[in-house]
């Protein structure tokens, strides 16, 4: 009899362990799937200067918003639940409010976890993204040969990150805004100042523009 009671207790114990472990496994799988989905940054959002590559950033950022508070231009936001960015992590939208490239990088200085790396000491070395002339068909300078150079004038490191290059096409001369990716910080000033209705030059997040580093698959 006692032996039976013992084995009954043992069976119950094993059953409850299996049950709980199974539930924990389900919760874990859901959580893991969700975390995988929220890994990539959408094309319209950029990380603040010094941000680690996206996969590392998601491990490092505790979503405290101290960078948002440190920004003197109030152009950083924390992602809200329902957006395509990991909830609570910081981003900015170049077309709305680009990065002003403060010399002392207060956002990175405020980061308690170094998700915004303190190894970035010169804001000109920032790689928030890279500008790409996405609208050759709409750009006034390229498509119409107009004397527009709003993006060039907006660039805080003009003549290095953007130059106006003279080109000839079908006997027609024009100046083309030409981005030099090694110098471009991705601040978004060019996209912000572009005069066409939909910006003809856009800053893409590094992971998207350069596949560098390759996102985890």
């Amino acid at each position, binding site marked *: 009899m006692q032996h039976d009671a013992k084995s009954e207790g043992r069976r119950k114990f094993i059953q*409850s362990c299996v049950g*709980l*472990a199974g*539930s*924990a*496994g389900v*919760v*874990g799988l859901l*959580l*893991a799937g*969700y*975390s*995988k989905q*929220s*890994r990539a940054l959408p094309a319209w959002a950029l990380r603040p200067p010094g941000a680690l590559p996206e*996969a*590392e950033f*998601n*491990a*490092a*950022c*505790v*979503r*405290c*918003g*101290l960078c*948002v*508070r440190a920004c003197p231009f109030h152009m950083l*936001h*924390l*992602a*809200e*639940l*329902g*957006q395509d960015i*990991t*909830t*609570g992590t910081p981003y900015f939208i170049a077309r709305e409010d680009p990065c002003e490239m403060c010399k002392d990088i207060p956002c990175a200085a*405020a*980061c*308690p*976890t*170094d*998700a915004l790396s303190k190894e970035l000491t010169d804001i000109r070395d920032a790689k928030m993204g890279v500008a790409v002339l996405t609208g050759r068909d709409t750009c006034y300078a390229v498509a119409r040969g107009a004397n527009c150079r709003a993006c060039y004038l907006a660039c805080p490191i003009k003549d290095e990150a953007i130059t106006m290059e003279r080109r000839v096409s079908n006997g027609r001369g024009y100046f083309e805004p030409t981005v030099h990716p090694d110098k471009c910080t991705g601040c978004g000033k060019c996209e912000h100042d572009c005069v066409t209705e939909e910006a003809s030059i856009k800053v893409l997040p590094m992971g998207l523009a350069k596949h560098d580093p390759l996102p*985890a698959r």
Partner: protein
Amino acid sequence: MNALAEQLNAPIMRGFLARNRWLILRRSAQLGILALFMAGPWFGIWWLKGNLASSTFLDVIGLTDPLVLLQSFLAGHAVALTALVGALTVLAFYAIVGGRVYCSWVCPINIVTDAAFWLRNRLRINASWQPRKSTRWWILTTALAVSVLTGTIAWELVNPITMLQRGLVFGMGLAWVVVAAVFLFDLAVSRRGWCSYICPVGAFYGTIGNLSLVRVSAVKRQACTDCGDCYRVCPEPHVIVPALKPKVLTASPVISSGDCTNCGRCIDVCPDDVFRFGTRFAKLS
């Protein structure tokens, strides 16, 4: 400090204030902390910046949630000094005042689940599914494991505490949905379900609570008339039994379980003045 504690503990006429002293103090603390965070964006008073995950007080004292930092570390990110010092500060604070003081005195979700509990009693909803007590430990373990496996701060993807608090300070988005889900879960599905059975943050702070200094004690347990009021208000009633009704008469009156949230509600409601705040070394009076 002692004088203050004596004064707060002193038996007075059991009017409304006496019956709700600790509850009022607790709500003041919860709302006060929220107000400090929101005074910045609302009124430009930047004493407390950031949110519960990490913050700076008066631009000097850095505070970081140790559980969030632990997940970040497990996800593969080297811990930065600022965050580490902030987390140790927080750990030291809760090691003194009680681990789950976070739950009952700081966490904004506590207000939500207490409201659900109140309404559940008002509506006389008795049906309840109680998960096992160990559930929150499994969820904590799972969240830590998922952090390791996916390289993300896993629980922060769903944590209603930080979603609500960050939402109030920075913008809600759909976070209301998560908060409403917790409220409905506690109201209709499980009595005290979220805070007492599910939430892994409470489980984490409970481990600190196992060692912490400030405790509730049943120092006058001989005066107990078995009315059961303390059990009815306590979010973790099992913690009271060993201190109030021990098997050995001389056993310590200290509520020593880390599950106790030091909310002090038992002190408030006891008509016989059995409970007191004190240290873990308190003796029978």
